[in-house]
C-alpha cells in the first residue's frame, strides 16, 4: 500500500483468495434452516430482503404519484386512486421500510458483533419479530390488494373512522403487528447492549453505531405501544363507534392527534438515529480518525431520544392546540435541533487532519451530511410557530421530511449497506458503478425535492391530486428528478446482486476499520467469534489497529 494511493481498500490477492469454508451463510443449508434460524446475521439478511421488497413497492407508488403530478389535471388516475397511492406509499415506507431499515438489517447484523457477543440476547424473539414484520406486511399487502387504503399514513380522525370506506382496519391491524415487531427488535437490542457486551467493552468504548441504535431502541420500546393503543381505538371507533375520537359523541378528535404523534414524532428519530450511527462509523473509517468528540456524539443520540418525547405537538400547531402549549412545544422543538447540529459539526471536524479517501460509503455519507443539514434546517422553519402556519401541510413539509428521511436515512442506509457489504457477503461491490449510483442518487434526490420547497412556499398543498397550472414547471422538474432517483436506487439492486457471485473477495478487513466486526472473518462464522474477545482499546483506535496489524505481520509473516 503506497502512501500516495487514493484508496484504503486492501483486498487479499484475488488469485489465491477464497471465501472462508465455513460461515453463517453456508453453515446450514435449505430454506428451513433460514426460516427457523436464531442467528442474528441470517435474520438480518432476511430483513434486508424483506425491506428491499417493500421499499420497491413503496417506491413504485412514489413513481405513480410523481407521474400523476406531471400535469396539473387529474388525468392519470381518479382521485380516490391517487389518495390510495400516497397512503400506501406512506404506510409502506414509514412502517415497513424506514422504521426497520437500519436497525433490523445492519443493527441486527452488527450490534452483537460490535460488542463482542455471539448473538442477540433473545434469538427466538428476534426471529419472532421478523415473522411479525411479515404478518403485518401481509396485512398491509392484503389491504392493498383488496383495494387499498386512502387515509394517508396519519389515519386522521374522524376521516379515517367515519368517512372512508376503504380497508382501514386491515391496515391498522397490519401496523399494530409491525409495531410489535419493532418493539421486540428494540427490546432485544437494549437487553443485548446492557447485558451481552464482551469483557472490556465499556459503555464509552462502544462504537457510536451502538449508541445511536440504543437510543432508537429506547424510542421503539417506549413510543410504539402508544401507537398500538391508538390504532386499537381507531379500529374500535370504526367498527363499533365507541366515540372516543368522535366529536359528535363528545370525543375529541385532537386526542387522536396527541396520541398518534406521541409515537409518530419519536418515530422519525427511530428512523434517523440508526442512520446517524452508520455515518459515524463511515466517516471515521474513511478519514482514519477517531470521531471528533466521541462523548458529545454519543450523548447527543441519547439527548435526541429524550427530547424526542417532548416535541410531538409541533405537528399540531395549527390544529387547535392551545397557543400556550404551542409555545412550549415550539421551544422544545428548537432544543431538539441542537444535538443534531452538534453531530453534523462533529462529523465535519472528524475529517480535519484525517487521511480521507472517497469510497462509495463515504460519498453517501457526504451526501447525508449535506442533505440532512438542509432537512434539519428546514425543520427549524417548521418549528418556528408563525412560519409553520404558512408552511405546514404544503409541499414544503413534504420536501422537509423527505430530506430527512430519504436524503438522510436512505443515504445512510445505502452508505451502511455498501460499507458492510463485504462483511455480510464476503465480496466487494463494484466500486466505480457504485460511485455512479451514489452521485446519481444525490443529483436525482435534489432535483426531486428542492423544487418542492419552492412549491411549498408558493402554497401548493400536499396530497393534492390536481393543482393550479402555475405550479407545473416545478412539478415537472420534481418528476424528472424522481426518474433519476429511481435509476439511482435500481442500480445498487443490480450490481449488489451481481457482486454476490462475481464481486472481488473482500477479506476480513477491506477498509482497515477498527470495529470488532472487522477483526473476524467475512462472512462471519455463525458464532461470530471463535474466542470471546477482550476489549482493551477505545472505539476508532487506529493506532491500536496499526499496532495489531504490525504484530500479525511479524508473527505470521
Amino acid at each position, binding site marked *: 500500500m503506497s*502512501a*500516495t494511493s487514493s*484508496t*484504503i481498500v486492501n483486498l487479499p490477492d484475488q488469485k489465491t483468495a477464497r471465501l472462508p469454508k465455513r460461515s453463517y451463510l453456508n453453515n446450514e443449508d435449505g430454506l428451513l434452516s433460514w426460516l427457523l434460524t436464531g442467528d442474528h446475521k441470517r435474520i438480518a439478511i432476511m430483513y434486508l430482503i424483506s425491506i428491499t421488497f417493500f421499499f420497491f413497492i413503496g417506491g413504485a407508488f412514489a413513481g405513480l404519484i410523481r407521474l400523476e403530478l406531471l400535469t396539473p389535471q387529474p388525468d392519470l388516475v381518479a*382521485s380516490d386512486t391517487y*389518495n390510495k397511492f400516497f397512503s400506501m406509499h406512506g404506510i409502506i415506507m414509514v412502517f415497513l421500510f424506514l422504521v426497520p431499515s437500519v436497525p433490523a438489517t445492519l443493527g441486527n447484523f452488527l450490534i452483537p458483533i460490535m460488542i463482542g457477543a455471539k448473538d442477540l440476547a433473545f434469538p427466538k424473539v428476534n426471529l419472532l419479530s421478523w415473522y411479525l414484520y411479515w404478518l403485518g406486511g401481509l396485512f398491509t399487502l392484503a389491504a392493498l390488494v383488496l383495494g387499498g387504503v386512502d387515509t*394517508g399514513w*396519519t389515519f*386522521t380522525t*374522524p376521516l379515517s373512522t*367515519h*368517512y*372512508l370506506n376503504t380497508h382501514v382496519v386491515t391496515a391498522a391491524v397490519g401496523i399494530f403487528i409491525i409495531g410489535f415487531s419493532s418493539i421486540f427488535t428494540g427490546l432485544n437490542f437494549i437487553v443485548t447492549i446492557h447485558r451481552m457486551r464482551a469483557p472490556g467493552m465499556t459503555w464509552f468504548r462502544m462504537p457510536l453505531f451502538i449508541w445511536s441504535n440504543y437510543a432508537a431502541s429506547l424510542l421503539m420500546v417506549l413510543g410504539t405501544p402508544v401507537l398500538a393503543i391508538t390504532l386499537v381505538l381507531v379500529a374500535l371507533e370504526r367498527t363499533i363507534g365507541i366515540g372516543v375520537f368522535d*366529536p*359528535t359523541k363528545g370525543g375529541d*378528535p*385532537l386526542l387522536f392527534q396527541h396520541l398518534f404523534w406521541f409515537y409518530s414524532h419519536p418515530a422519525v428519530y427511530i428512523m434517523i438515529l440508526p442512520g446517524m450511527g452508520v455515518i459515524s462509523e463511515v466517516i471515521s473509517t474513511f478519514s*482514519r*480518525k*477517531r470521531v*471528533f*468528540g*466521541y*462523548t458529545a456524539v454519543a450523548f447527543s443520540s441519547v439527548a435526541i431520544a429524550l427530547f424526542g418525547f417532548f416535541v410531538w405537538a409541533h405537528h399540531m*400547531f395549527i390544529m387547535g392546540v392551545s397557543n400556550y402549549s404551542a409555545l412550549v412545544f*415550539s*421551544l422544545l422543538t*428548537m*432544543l431538539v435541533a441542537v444535538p443534531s*447540529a*452538534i453531530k453534523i*459539526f462533529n462529523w465535519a*471536524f472528524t*475529517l*480535519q*487532519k*484525517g*487521511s480521507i479517501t*472517497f469510497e462509495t460509503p463515504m460519498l453517501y455519507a457526504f451526501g447525508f*451530511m*449535506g442533505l440532512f*443539514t438542509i432537512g434539519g434546517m428546514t425543520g*427549524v422553519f417548521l*418549528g*418556528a410557530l*408563525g*412560519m*409553520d*402556519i*404558512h408552511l*405546514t*401541510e404544503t409541499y414544503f413539509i413534504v420536501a422537509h421530511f423527505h430530506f430527512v428521511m430519504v436524503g438522510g436515512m436512505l443515504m445512510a442506509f445505502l452508505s451502511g449497506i455498501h460499507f458492510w457489504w463485504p462483511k455480510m457477503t464476503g465480496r466487494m461491490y463494484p466500486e466505480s458503478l457504485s460511485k455512479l449510483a451514489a452521485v446519481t442518487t444525490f443529483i436525482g434526490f435534489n432535483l426531486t425535492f428542492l423544487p418542492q420547497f419552492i412549491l411549498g*412556499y*408558493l402554497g401548493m*398543498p*400536499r*396530497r393534492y*391530486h*390536481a393543482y393550479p397550472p402555475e405550479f407545473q414547471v416545478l412539478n415537472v422538474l420534481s418528476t424528472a428528478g424522481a426518474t433519476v432517483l429511481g435509476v439511482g436506487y435500481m442500480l445498487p439492486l443490480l450490481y449488489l446482486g451481481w457482486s454476490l457471485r462475481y464481486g472481488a473477495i473482500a477479506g476480513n478487513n477491506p477498509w482497515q476499520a477498527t470495529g470488532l466486526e472487522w477483526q473476524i472473518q467475512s462472512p462471519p462464522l455463525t458464532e461470530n467469534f471463535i474466542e470471546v474477545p477482550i476489549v482493551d482499546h477505545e472505539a476508532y483506535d487506529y*493506532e491500536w489497529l496499526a499496532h495489531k496489524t504490525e504484530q500479525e505481520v511479524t508473527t505470521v509473516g
Partner: protein
Amino acid sequence: MHISPVLWQFLVKWLNASALFPREASTIAPYADALYFFLLLITVVGLSVVGALIFGFAIRYRKEKHPVAVQVEGSTLLEATWTIIPLALFLICFVWGALLYFRIYNPPTNAMNIYVVGKQWMWKAEHQGGQHEINALHVPVGRPVQLTMISQDVFHSFSVPDFRIKREVIPGRYSTVWFQATTPGTYHLFCTQYCGTNHSQMIGEVTAMTPDDFQKWLQASTSGMSLAQNGERLFASMGCNACHTGTAGSRGPNLAGVYGSKLQLTNGSEVLVNDAYLRDAILNPSEHVTAGYSPIMPTYQGQVSEDGLIDLVEYIKGLNSNYRIQQTLVTSQSDQTAPTTPAGVKP
C-alpha cells in the same frame, strides 16, 4: 422587516416575476416573509459552513495530500461553540416565530367577521348580511377580516398562501384566523388538510376588492335575509323564545346583551360568552347552566346544522333588547312578519 424597503420591494418583485415566490397580498405577508428570509439566510450560511468544512477538509486532508491521520480527541471549546451558536439562532427563530404566530392568530378587535363552514368538499362562506358563497370569499382590502370557521364533518384547513395564513377547520369547535388584504385581486384558497376523496377539489378563490366594489358586491349578492334574521327565524321556530323571553321569571336566562359578558354558571365557574360558548350552550346546555336557572333546556345536538348554529349565534350576538323576542312571541309567525333589517347589518 429591517431591510431597506427599496431592496425588499426589489427582491419580492423579482422573485414574483420568476414565479418562485407567492404574492404578498396581506398585511401579514411581509412579516412572514421577513422571518422566511431570515431562516433562509441562516440555512444558507449553515449549509455553506458545513459544505466548506466538508469540502475544505476533504480536499486538504485527502489521502494523497495527508497520508497519515493525526488523531484528535475533540475540543470542548469548539463543541461549545457549535452548541451555543445554533442554540442561540434557534432561540431567535423561536421568539420571532412566536411573535408572528400571535400576530396571525390574534385578530384585532375591529375586525369584520365572516363565518366559514367547511364540509366535504366545499367551503361555504357566510357574510353577516346573509350573502352566502361557495368555494369563494369576497373581502374588502384595507379592512381586517376575521374568519370564524367550523367543519361539518372532518378536519379541513383553510389556507390562502398569498396571505400567508392557514388554520385548521375543526369539527365541533370554532377556530379563527384573520387577515387584512392589501391588494385587490383573486387569490387561491386551498384546503390543505387531507379530507377524503376530493380533497384537491376543495379549492376556491378569495377575491379582494376595493371597499366600494365590495359594497357593490354585497348588495348584488344579498339573499334578502341577514344571518341574524335567519337566526331570529330559527330562534322562533325551534321554540327558544318560549323560555328565553327576557321577562322576569322566565325559565331561560335573558339573552339580550349576553354576548361578551361574563356569566356565572351553576357549577361555580365563570365564563366569557363568545361564539364558542354560545354554540356549546345550545348543543350541551346542561353543562352550561347559568346560575339561578335549572337545567331544563333540551339539547339541540343533531337538530340544527352548523349553518343554523351560526345564524343563532349571530342573532344572539346582536341582541340588544328583548323587544323583538317578545314581539315574535306574540305573533309567533315570524316568517310572515318580514322583520325589518337592523341597521347594523344593512346589506
